[in-house]
């Protein structure tokens, strides 16, 4: 019952008028900043830190947390409306959200995103309060070899969900890792693939690639379509009927749980969580083949998962002082500046901060819902912009996002290059998602590999001696192979098999190893990647 008292105390802190006001400001600012393609939670929090300096630490961290989940939601808005995810965590939302918008269901997609985010955040907060300590212990027991295997599984899982051609998906993933290795090697200071270009010494920023292969490639595709086939800007009803609510409740619940547990693992985050939730739902759904063409479940699952993961990533930050993602690493920095040291002692020394933050998350989620549902028609108006004006404007937003990061025109050329690459890739059936994930995970993958081999004195068998690692690697092989086996087994002998249509799209419901990640906590961790760009992950090196 002590916990209940503390939660009550936390709500008293969070509901103080001043804190309430700043939750509101934080969520609003986060949503607006997150909507701009190119600006994600990391930049949003970083931008708000100067404002937080003068505040009481509790109020400050409450506001920054509001900025965090506001930005995650804002990112889904631009994913749905423009197919321009500013944050890696909302890439999966665009898979079905954008097709929905193009079918004139932008309002519905945004409403689902808002509600699923709320559900995910709420489930996340409840779990955070109940089982944070236990979970933290479990996540910490992962060694570097396990992490490496986790990331391999994360990659192959995304490839297997990615589409019809496995080979092309794997090529995209490998190229993503290849891009992530450009720059100065962090351990040996060796230049790798920089060709003497100083701008490449620090590597290729995630944002440039993401804006290129998603937003800019989309601009090219819109032009090639001659502006046809787009959403006509009609803001359809936001309302969901009872059947839709019933359809969505299970994916949302699963996405919330999965998202939270993935978010808790240090290094994992909203990105992996949303991809995992998406692939799980695609596998589970009877209508899995319609994912990618505007299935409402494909919006609800990643949205609930990324918000739950945003909450989950606070667990290691608050209980261990270890940031679970690039974003929480920035939050950690802000806390330290404010004179609060997160860690095991924080609960006893600064209970007001700990429980205040927890309770404010709940309040913040409510504010997010109240604020965003009425504003949806406004957001959806973006689609009414004539295509001839919208295309150049999206280009400008991409340019500003990239230039504001590095202040060099070299990165603008890179952006254009990745835009062309992204368009050619999509014209030839190469999925872009594995490329992005490979880029995000690449740096961390190499680091885990090094740590593991350092510990084992160079013996590669270390990846096969840890039970976690073996299980994860096995799943990593099964994830893409399972659907193939299923297809082979049905094979040419039974083309008229009753479940034929589903098998045709590689929906792996029949495969023996086809659904390795069905939402259990042990396996939901199967992808310990960093949430933000690879360069922000130094904090979790151990």
């Amino acid at each position, binding site marked *: 019952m002590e916990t209940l008292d503390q939660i009550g105390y936390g709500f008293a802190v969070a509901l103080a008028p001043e804190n309430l006001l700043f939750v509101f400001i934080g969520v609003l600012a986060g949503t607006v900043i997150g909507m701009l393609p190119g600006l994600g939670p990391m930049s949003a929090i970083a931008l708000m830190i100067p404002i937080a300096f003068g505040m009481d630490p509790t109020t400050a961290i409450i506001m920054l947390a509001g900025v965090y989940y506001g930005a995650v939601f804002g990112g889904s808005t631009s994913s749905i409306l423009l197919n321009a995810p500013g944050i890696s965590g909302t*890439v999966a939302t665009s898979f079905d959200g954008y097709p929905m918008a193009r*079918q004139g269901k932008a309002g519905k997609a945004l409403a689902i995103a808002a509600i699923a985010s709320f559900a995910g955040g709420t489930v996340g907060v409840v779990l955070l309060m109940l089982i944070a300590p236990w979970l933290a212990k479990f996540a910490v027991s992962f060694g570097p070899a396990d992490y490496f295997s986790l990331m391999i599984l994360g990659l192959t899982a995304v490839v297997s969900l990615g589409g019809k051609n496995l080979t092309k998906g794997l090529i995209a993933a*490998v190229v993503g*890792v290849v891009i992530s290795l450009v720059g100065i090697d962090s351990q040996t200071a060796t230049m790798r693939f920089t060709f003497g270009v100083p701008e490449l010494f620090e590597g290729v920023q995630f944002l440039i690639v993401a804006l290129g292969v998603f937003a800019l490639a989309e601009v090219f595709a819109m032009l090639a379509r001659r502006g046809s086939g787009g959403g006509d800007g009609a803001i359809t009803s936001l309302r969901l009927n009872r059947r839709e609510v019933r359809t969505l409740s299970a994916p949302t619940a699963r996405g919330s749980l999965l998202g939270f547990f993935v978010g808790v693992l240090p290094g994992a985050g909203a990105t992996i969580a949303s991809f995992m939730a998406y692939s799980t739902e695609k596998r589970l759904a009877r209508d899995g083949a319609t994912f990618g063409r*505007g299935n409402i479940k494909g919006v609800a699952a990643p949205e609930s998962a990324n918000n739950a993961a945003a909450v989950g990533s606070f667990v290691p930050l608050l209980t261990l002082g270890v940031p679970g993602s690039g974003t929480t690493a920035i939050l950690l920095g802000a806390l330290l500046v404010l004179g609060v040291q997160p860690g095991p002692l924080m609960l006893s020394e600064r209970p007001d901060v700990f429980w205040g933050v927890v309770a404010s998350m709940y309040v913040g989620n409510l504010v997010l819902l109240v604020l965003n549902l009425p504003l949806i028609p406004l957001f959806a108006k973006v689609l009414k912009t004539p295509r001839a004006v919208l295309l150049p404007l999206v280009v400008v937003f991409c340019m*500003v996002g990239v230039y*504001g990061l590095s202040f060099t025109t070299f990165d603008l050329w890179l952006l254009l290059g990745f835009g062309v690459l992204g368009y050619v890739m999509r014209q030839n059936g190469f999925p872009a998602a594995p490329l992005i994930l490979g880029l995000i995970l690449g740096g961390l993958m*190499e680091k885990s590999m090094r740590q593991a081999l350092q510990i084992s*004195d160079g013996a590669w068998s270390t990846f096969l001696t840890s039970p976690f690692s073996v299980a994860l690697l096995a799943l990593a092989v099964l994830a893409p192979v399972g659907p193939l086996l299923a297809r082979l087994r049905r094979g040419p002998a039974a083309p008229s098999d009753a479940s034929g249509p589903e098998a045709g799209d590689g929906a792996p419901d029949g495969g023996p190893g086809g659904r390795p990640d069905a939402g259990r906590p042990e396996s939901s961790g199967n992808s310990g990647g960093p949430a933000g760009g690879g360069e922000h992950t130094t904090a979790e090196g151990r």
Partner: protein
Amino acid sequence: MTPFGFSNRVLAVVVALFAIGYLVLAFRMPEFTAVEVPVQPSTLPRWLGAVLLVLAGVLFFQRGAPGEDGERVPAAGSAGTAAGTGDAGMDGGSGDAGGEGAGAAAGAAAPRAFLGRIPDARLELAAFAGSIAAYVLLFEPLGFLISTAVYVFGASWYLGYRRHWANALVSVGVPAVLYFTMSEFLDVALPTGPLPF
């Protein structure tokens, strides 16, 4: 027409060439000898290059017509109504699977303005990429405000936006709002060019 769609063989050769180039660079990379490390800077790149080469080999022997996964585009002059193309969810990777709904919806709508002026989509795309390149070139010399206003106005006009006053307003207004938001509130200094602010 599927612009820039290639057969699997062509794609495989391109990937293989890239992989070979990458492997050559990876094997030329100097070994790190100051301290003994189990993983050299070149270890992972070598693995990646090898895997990529294998994957390219697999791709080479897969069937696939040029651009079968790509998005077909309407031919010139039939814009709008000819839109029943496979409209892929771009990265969900469903390729050109279906898209009946979108196609039907677009087909039913009145023909909308035809974007651009060159009938060949490939040339049109190249021209558009060229305009972005020109924008990048002028970004710093002319400054953000001027280059962006010129780019937005020019591109919108070229793509077929006919309301010139609205266009002028947008091309000046949006960059101005962006510029002052970025510089005043976010302390992001965009290039000023010849303008004094």
